[in-house]
């Protein structure tokens, strides 16, 4: 018995310095995205803007999936609510003209957050009663419900016509300037998110993901904390949605639909849900491929389907998961089993 135990104990279960992966990836991305417009043409600057906005959306989804361990198939509802809040205020402010002041513009953008948060509070109130597949299905049902409301309510939302002519104020009409606006906002949002996932609350989410039952025995009313996180995730999705309308100059009900929700799921799986930067990396892959592949073929769904298939089968941890595994192997070989103690303390899957 003693022998057996000491044998298992020598197996090295110490955390390898993989926590730095997200930090390094983020630092690299920061530089690349900061400099991108200098080398990219207008088309690719717009693709980069899309990467940032959808990346923020996917990261907000991952607060629920990667950190809390529940999967939502209706997360786009909050992305869409944010987009519509902004678009409808836009419509009020411009009053048929195409002019909007800078103040009005930023007020419209900010409005996306509270509306999405309120929507998430209502939807979350019901969804957090369940976990697993039931949670997933209920989020899907609510997402489709909201989609249908927006789709049918012509007099208020414009129905399936959506809302067009969302022209930002002059400065931000330039794709490069709008790109930098998104860059600044997304970076700020990511900084707040980083703070949250490394707070006591963030670790409680991970604990609930690993073992929700045990958190109750610690003294946690799991529903309340799930709801708080659901609202936080909805708020970030709302912010992403708010940036979307002025970017594409229009909003449509499909922004709330399940296909849009699916994009967040795809991106997160592509990049790696166990990593803070995972969904953003996933957004780069997804959005870039989408822009590139649709340039020469209409078989985009087939392409992305095949890629997802490969990821799920061969690297369920996404791209960052694959890099992480590769580095683990390399570290083991390179240092012949001696762990890099200086970095052991770094955060893990974050």
């Amino acid at each position: 018995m003693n022998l057996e135990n000491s044998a298992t104990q020598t197996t090295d279960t110490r955390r390898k310095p993989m926590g730095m992966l997200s930090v390094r990836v983020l630092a690299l991305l920061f530089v690349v995205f900061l400099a991108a417009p200098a080398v990219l043409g207008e088309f690719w600057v717009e693709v980069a803007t899309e990467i940032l906005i959808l990346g923020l959306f996917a990261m907000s989804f991952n607060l629920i999936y990667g950190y809390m361990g529940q999967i939502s198939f209706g997360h786009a509802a909050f992305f869409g609510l944010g987009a519509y809040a902004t678009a409808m205020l836009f419509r009020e402010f411009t009053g048929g003209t195409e002019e909007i002041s800078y103040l009005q513009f930023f007020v419209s953008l900010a409005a996306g957050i509270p509306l999405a948060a309120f929507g998430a509070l209502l939807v979350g109130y019901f969804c957090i009663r369940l976990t697993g597949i039931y949670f997933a299905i209920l989020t899907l049902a609510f997402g489709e419900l909201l989609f249908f409301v927006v789709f049918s309510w012509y007099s208020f939302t414009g129905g399936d016509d959506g809302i067009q002519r969302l022209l930002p104020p002059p400065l931000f009409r330039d794709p490069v300037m709008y790109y930098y606006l998104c860059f600044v906002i997304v970076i700020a949002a990511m900084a707040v998110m980083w703070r949250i996932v490394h707070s006591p609350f963030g670790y409680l989410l991970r604990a609930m993901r690993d073992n929700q039952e045990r958190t109750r025995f610690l003294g946690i009313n799991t529903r309340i904390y799930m709801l708080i996180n659901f609202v936080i995730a909805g708020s970030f999705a709302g912010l992403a949605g708010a940036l979307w309308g002025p970017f594409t100059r229009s909003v449509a009900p499909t922004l709330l639909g399940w296909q849009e929700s699916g994009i967040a799921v795809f991106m997160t799986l592509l990049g790696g849900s166990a990593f803070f930067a995972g969904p953003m990396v996933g957004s780069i892959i997804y959005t870039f491929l989408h822009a590139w592949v649709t340039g020469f073929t209409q078989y985009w769904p087939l392409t992305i389907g095949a890629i997802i298939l490969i990821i799920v089968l061969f690297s369920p941890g996404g791209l960052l998961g694959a890099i992480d595994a590769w580095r683990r192997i390399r570290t083991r070989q390179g240092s012949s089993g001696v762990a890099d103690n200086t970095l052991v303390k770094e955060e893990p899957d974050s």
Partner: protein
Amino acid sequence: MTDPILNVVGLNKHFGGIRVTRELNISISRGAKEAIIGPNGAGKSTLFNLLTGYHRPESGTIVFEGNDITNWATHQIAHAGISRAFQISNIFTRLTVLENVRTAVHVRMGKAGNIFASAQRIGTTETEKILKRCHLVEKSSHIAGELAQGDKKKLELAIALAGKPRLLLLDEPTAGMSFEETRETMTLVDKLNDDLGLSVLFTEHDMAVVFNHAQRVSLLHRGEIIVEGTPEEVRRDEMAQRVYLGEHH
């Protein structure tokens, strides 16, 4: 039985047609260290589930420190001061050992809802103290799910201690541990009881552990406490010999 910290009266619980707890009475004095023994299926784990609000009894009352907690939710009972360590380790598998304990410390401090502070800066001293006490310092940066069985059980206990309970429920605290680990763990339990006056109620299959460490022993059989007394009294009891102890000696 002066000043009982826990008083259970007439507890009943059925699962379908099976009565798993019948008219169960048990009283734990403040600062006591008691064991519940009994054959498999006697209802030991069910009793712990009832005490921690995981199951609701059909009838009977559970009074903890003067409060009737019979129908309280699990998290409310934890807050009231009852911590539980599980028989099969029930930990946060993808967090490190340190993060496991620190999260439990945050919950106890009422800081779990803190969204913007850095988790690393809160409750660190207390976390380290618990890790030290439970002989887990060297494993603190290991991923919990990859620990050896004995270490998982130590972590299980550490998480329960993080709640700073006044009553600690231990469900087979040494199951799966080596001889050395068992000794270490039970020494710790004794110390918690002696030094901090922590009341402990534990179940155990290892009779050596029970008779060396419990001040009082209750024998649970088919959902009822049939014998109760000091280890010596229970050991000598004829009924206890017949239904349970006989098979162990």
